[in-house]
């Protein structure tokens, strides 16, 4: 382990709260922490939902022509008109969760727990809490409440700053 002064830092702004977009921030945060970096995640807007006690993450197939699910031995995309049909997003979410399990990919709950265990610092955006009317009771224990200035202070001290 590098000594305190040599420790590299990474910060991340997490803005998205769908099942697919929840992966990059948690994968990078846990891996960076495992590689000895000091990691801070700032959860804002839809990203804030990733700090809720009970996660019920979904994917949306709407407006995502790159999303092709492996089905019936081929890859099938989802035209917007089909995405709008009730139940399609729910079915796609179930399918994605099955794939995640089958391919040995960690769940978001698992990755989040590992991030907390690895002392990844988490900041919940106070403004978003107010905007969407969340209370501290809705959220897991650990994250501190803060705003843009709290994040910027961290960012100025970090070698890596990501917006996801």
């Amino acid at each position, binding site marked *: 382990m590098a000594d305190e002064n040599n420790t590299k830092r990474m910060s991340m702004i997490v803005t998205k709260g769908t099942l697919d977009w929840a992966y990059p921030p948690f994968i990078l945060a*846990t*891996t960076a922490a*495992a*590689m*000895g970096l000091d990691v801070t995640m700032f959860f804002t807007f839809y990203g804030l939902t990733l700090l809720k006690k009970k996660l019920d993450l979904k994917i949306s197939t709407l407006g995502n022509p790159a999303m092709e699910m492996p089905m019936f031995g081929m890859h099938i995309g989802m035209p917007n008109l089909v995405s709008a049909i009730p139940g399609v997003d729910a079915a796609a979410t179930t399918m994605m969760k099955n794939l995640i399990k089958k391919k*040995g*990919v*960690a769940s978001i709950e698992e990755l989040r727990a590992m991030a907390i265990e690895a002392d990844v610092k988490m900041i919940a955006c106070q403004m978003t809490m107010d905007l969407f009317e969340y209370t501290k009771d809705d959220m897991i224990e650990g994250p501190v409440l803060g705003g843009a200035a709290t994040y910027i202070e961290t960012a100025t001290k970090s070698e890596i700053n990501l917006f996801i």
Partner: protein
Amino acid sequence: MADQVLDAKGLNCPLPILRAKKALKDVPIGGTLQVLATDPGAVKDFEAFCRTTGNDLVESKSEGKQFEFLIRRRS
């Protein structure tokens, strides 16, 4: 023989690395950890992990669809 063996077969990125990091804590400094994996991405990832954390990647080999890494804990 390695001091510890970690079976990370069937696990996908970033789990082999995260599990290895955890397992390394139980290896004495100078000791070795053997990791078994099936994720082809782990080959590059263990190289990067060891370079960044200052541990030695003593061995990296593949047999069919299985990969085997030997890490010597340095720090």
